[in-house]
């Protein structure tokens, strides 16, 4: 017998279930318990950059909205800096910018939305540059392990065309599933990003 490799094994995932809100967004479950719920303020009031809203629905394989989904958001600030100790430019991070958020849907319509600052481009591997993007993580009843995807911006066509991750998607006709559509509403930019778990135009999900 060779020596054992004594690594631990990752704990297995289980679905977040229908009552995920109790733990992660108790106000939505119908009660107040914590002084402050986490994840409602992604960018803070003072971070520079363009203020945007992102909204959409998550759609299941039957074409129905998923009304009990919870999404988490992770992104860089407008200068492409992450509020994290391993970002080499962390000391340039925008004041009060966290870059993380937690979003739930309207229980009747399935619509979700969050307000943030549009991120800047960030470094990629081996000296490359990634187009501005927001990382999303999706959990819900019926999702056995959280789904990772990315949101890119349709007004960044040039950067998107050079993005090493988008370019890795072999099926070119699937790339648009990661690109949010910009419009203006009451003078403010809104990006629409619907996520299709299954079926026509299934969103690209990542094994990170």
């Amino acid at each position, binding site marked *: 017998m060779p020596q054992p490799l004594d*690594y*631990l*094994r*990752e*704990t*297995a*995932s*289980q*679905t*977040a*279930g*229908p*009552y995920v809100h*109790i*733990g992660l967004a*108790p106000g939505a*479950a119908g*009660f107040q*318990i*914590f002084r*402050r719920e986490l994840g409602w303020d992604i960018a803070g009031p003072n971070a520079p950059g363009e203020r945007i809203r992102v909204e959409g629905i998550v759609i*299941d*394989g039957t074409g*129905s909205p998923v009304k*009990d989904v919870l999404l*988490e958001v*992770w992104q860089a600030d407008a200068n492409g800096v992450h*509020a*994290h100790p*391993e*970002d*080499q430019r962390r000391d340039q991070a925008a004041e009060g910018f966290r870059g993380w958020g937690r979003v739930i849907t309207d229980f009747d319509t399935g619509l979700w939305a969050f307000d943030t600052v549009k991120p800047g*481009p*960030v*470094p990629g591997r*081996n*000296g490359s*540059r*990634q187009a501005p*993007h927001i990382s999303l*993580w999706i959990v*819900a*009843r*019926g*999702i*056995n*392990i959280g*789904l*990772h995807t*990315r949101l890119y911006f349709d007004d960044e066509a040039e950067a998107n065309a050079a993005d090493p991750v988008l370019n*890795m*998607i072999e099926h070119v006709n*699937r790339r648009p599933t990661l690109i949010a559509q910009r419009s203006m509403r009451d003078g403010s930019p809104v990006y629409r990003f619907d996520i299709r778990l*299954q*079926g026509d135009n299934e*969103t690209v*999900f*990542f*094994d*990170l």
Partner: protein
Amino acid sequence: MLRNDKPRPGEFFQRDRSLHPPQYTPGYKTSVARSPRYALLSLENTISEMTGPVFGHNDIDPIDNDLIKNYAKTGDPIGERIIVHGRVLDESGRGVPNTLVEIWQANAGGRYRHKKDTYLAPIDPNFGGCGRTLTDENGFYFFRTVKPGAYPWRNYVNSWRPAHIHVSVFGTSFVQRLITQMYFEGDPLIKVCPIVNTIPDPQAIDQLIAPLDMNAAIPLDCLAYKFDIVLRGRRSTLFENRLEGN
């Protein structure tokens, strides 16, 4: 040009998907229409994946980890008093310090405090059912709560969930993000649960079952269960000082 080439803590071990439930698990019916059909696209780590949210003691309050007191209105909640404690580790066995652990659960009767839960068991006026804490500098965490009850759910006609506590953990990076469920040693419902049985690996199921820990129980007060949580590990960067541009 933007670069992130300088030596840095290593990238994450590839996730061993064989121990996790696949997305499509027909025995858990809700997964059928909510599971992607195409293969996931495997992506090497970039700064977007190797970073993640950082939390501090300003984000939470000390009472947040005590589910016996954090929603008590007229007295303590009904149920078997327990401590749940353990350590958040990575696959190399290193404690993960200062990471946020959040839990939620049903009350002792198997009822959730949630506007969408209509099970006939009563709401406990003194039990909210959620808590959160940060691990200490060595990765240890603890909660106090009451043991949740089993409850029926609509999957098959007579499907029941074993007693369980939902657990959410962050780690230091967005690729370590994990939600799971903790079960209790000796519960006969574990082996007939369609959600537990989405996990194809028996050892991975065992790893979700917290043993009774009499050494951590408080005599004449409460029992204890121990639940360690393992997040993905990071490679060491041996022989990886690449030349610029490579």
